[in-house]
């Protein structure tokens, strides 16, 4: 056995019985969801319960549907022509977010997102953070100042940028930019933060910083992270879902997925045999 899993002990690879982590209250309930891009089906009958204040990782090879599912959770897929959730429901706190009565704007305030490619606006750092707040009509200076500091501290960026809050966010390094985007997301105090391969464009050192940040954020937010980097999933997530060809193959505690996968495909993937 030479599976490079952080949970593998040298003595006995997969024979350790994995004790299931305590089950928290469900926040997002994905219930038999089928999803289409035009005529082609991208997701097949997905069933998944995402727990509150946990980090849930979606893994799987490219094109397996993990990003699609993530973008369903705050309806970013609405922006793409011809997409639709054909069957099933996605419920947050029991409310179907695809219901007609749901205001997608309110939804997105509650379900923030961090993108694969860091996308700070070409404004100052301060304006980047306050962008979402100003949209909600918050304009008091002291209020905004406080939020900026809190968010930047929350994103572990404060010490690095506190002296240049009014310079362009584009002047930061790649990793700083991504943390700025995270700070921007947490400034509007969402309940959930979706992260779409947040570290794929970062160098290893910056990646470590973002991962540490995720560990800190888990106490306050429910985090769903899509990653193609299995070590990352293993390092920072509580639960892991493995997708393949638009289907959810296996969903379990991260330890179980990496050490004792129930499914042969999962095992093949996590052991690096394909993907």
């Amino acid at each position, binding site marked *: 056995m030479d599976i490079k899993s952080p949970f593998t002990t040298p003595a006995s690879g997969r024979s350790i019985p994995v004790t299931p982590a305590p089950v928290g209250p469900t926040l997002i309930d994905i219930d038999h969801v089928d999803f289409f891009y035009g005529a082609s089906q991208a997701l097949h009958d997905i069933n998944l319960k995402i727990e*509150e204040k946990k980090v849930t990782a979606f893994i799987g090879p490219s094109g397996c549907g993990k990003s699609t599912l993530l973008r369903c959770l705050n309806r970013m897929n609405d922006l793409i022509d011809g997409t639709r959730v054909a069957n099933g429901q996605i419920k*947050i*706190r*029991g*409310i179907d*977010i695809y219901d007609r*009565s*749901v*205001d997608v704007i*309110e*939804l997105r305030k*509650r379900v923030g997102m961090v993108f694969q490619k860091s996308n700070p606006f070409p404004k100052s750092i301060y304006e980047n953070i306050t962008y979402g707040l100003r949209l909600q009509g918050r304009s008091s200076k002291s209020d905004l100042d406080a939020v900026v500091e809190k968010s930047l501290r929350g994103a572990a960026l404060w010490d690095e940028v506190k002296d240049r809050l009014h310079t362009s966010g584009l002047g930061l390094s790649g990793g700083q930019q991504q943390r700025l985007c995270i700070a921007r997301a947490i400034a509007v*105090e*969402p*309940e959930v933060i979706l992260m779409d391969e947040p570290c794929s464009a970062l160098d290893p050192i910056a990646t470590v910083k973002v991962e540490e940040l995720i560990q800190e954020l888990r*106490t*306050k*937010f429910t985090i769903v992270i899509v990653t193609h980097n299995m070590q990352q999933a293993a390092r920072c997530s509580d639960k892991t879902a493995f997708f393949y060809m638009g289907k959810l193959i296996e969903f379990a505690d991260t330890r179980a997925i990496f050490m004792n996968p129930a499914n042969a495909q999962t095992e093949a993937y996590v052991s690096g045999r394909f993907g």
Partner: protein
Amino acid sequence: METPRPTSQSDFLVNKKRIRVFGLSFDDAIKIFFGGNAVVSIIVLALITYFLFQEGIGFFGQNHRNLLTYRQAGLEYVDFIRTQESGHIALTRYLSDLRLRQYNHYIAEQKMSPAAANEALAKFDEFAAQYGDAVEPIRGMVSDLTEQATAIKTKFLIAEDKKTERQQLLVAGKIDEAAAVKIEAVDFAAELHLLTGILPVYKQTSAEFAKKLDAALAVAPKLSTPELMVRLDRFNQLTHDYLATFPATARSLETWDYTRAVPWYQAISAFLFGREWLTASFWQDWYGIVPLLMGSVMVSLVALVIAVPLGVGAAIYINQIASAQEQRIIKPSIEFISAFPSVVLGFFGIAVLGQSLRWLSQQSWLAWVPGFPFSERLNILTAGCLLALIAVPTIFTLAEDALQNVPKAFKEASFALGATRLQTIIKIVVPASLSGIISAVLLGLGRVIGETMVVLLCAGNRIAIPDFTAGLAVVTQPVHTMTGIIAQEMGEVVRGSIHYRALFVVGIVLFFLSLGINFIAQKIVRKYRISIG
């Protein structure tokens, strides 16, 4: 650390804040506003079509009446004989050309003095005079009949005007005044009797005319060279052909009937295939688009012949050969040329280019060029050269784009096989971008054919079908164009008149012509995109 938000608040997803008016949120309203603006393009295109037709379509009815009057007032009848007369005029012109050739021969080859040359031609002149005078009785007849037919037409038009006047008065409710408008109805049968009654006289005159021509031919003197004799024989032949048409003319006159209906489609075909655009004439107005269309096509062809090699050549040079520095300078420069206002180019044509070209054509070392020397400074060539300057930036920019789109890998693969630069360009790059280049040329054509000011100022504005028997020299003739005629005459016509409507119909033709060119160009481009992808 405090929790971000009270978790019990579970109704947070329900939309309750946004204000709705008629079931529309503010964002929907914005979207509809933008969408409405986007639809403007469609509306404008529809309005253009609608108003061109609204103003233009009445032309065909009016033209139909125009043609009907032509028949009913006997103008058509007179024109049968007039055609016979003008046939003779063409023949006498041939004869004078023959005399000139003989004269030149005497002067140049036989070294005669002008007086002696004229002396030697005395016999020929006698023959020519006899030949020419033969037509006089017919000519007199035509001019008498012309007067009569014009009188009938005028009478008819006055009656029509009165009718309209009465109609208007009636509409205005002035019944008494309407009754007071006297309408003199035209009795065509009676009036035309004067015209048709001349038939027996005509037959006799025509027969005499034929005899005289025959007699004249009999005394035709010999000419001094075999080449000229061949021409004289040709003239004989032409005269006989001409004489052979006489019975047909007589038959047309006999069978002519003013009551015969003018089919409706003739109003359209007379426009589309009419070889004359003749307006404000005392006799009969003709609205035939052919001379204008030919003018536009000729000017555009000349422009493309010049612009395509230059534009495509420059595109290839800039894209494939030039250094980066040359590119940086030349590309904006050519774009800059595209900003030249066309009216300034037209002015340049009048002020400089026309004269320069004429001067150039009169240089003896250029005498071998067909059509050189020419005397009209404003002609197809002048306009074509300037239009080429307008078309070049369009063709260059689009062709350069097409070349740019050729994947670099194609080129690299070719070089890797040891091909030279030229081979790569000719065998790989140009074929791969050919459809793009063709559509660039087509769009250039669309630009040129719709261009107004340059042709208005520089094409010479002579409404006539270019004489293609001149071969390539045809490009030195002045023409009028579709765009030019609209710009020139629209300001002077009465709104609602047949002439006004005819100009709108020319506009319709122009509109659909350019739409067609555009459509084909786009079609080619689309195909090309698919083939690359």
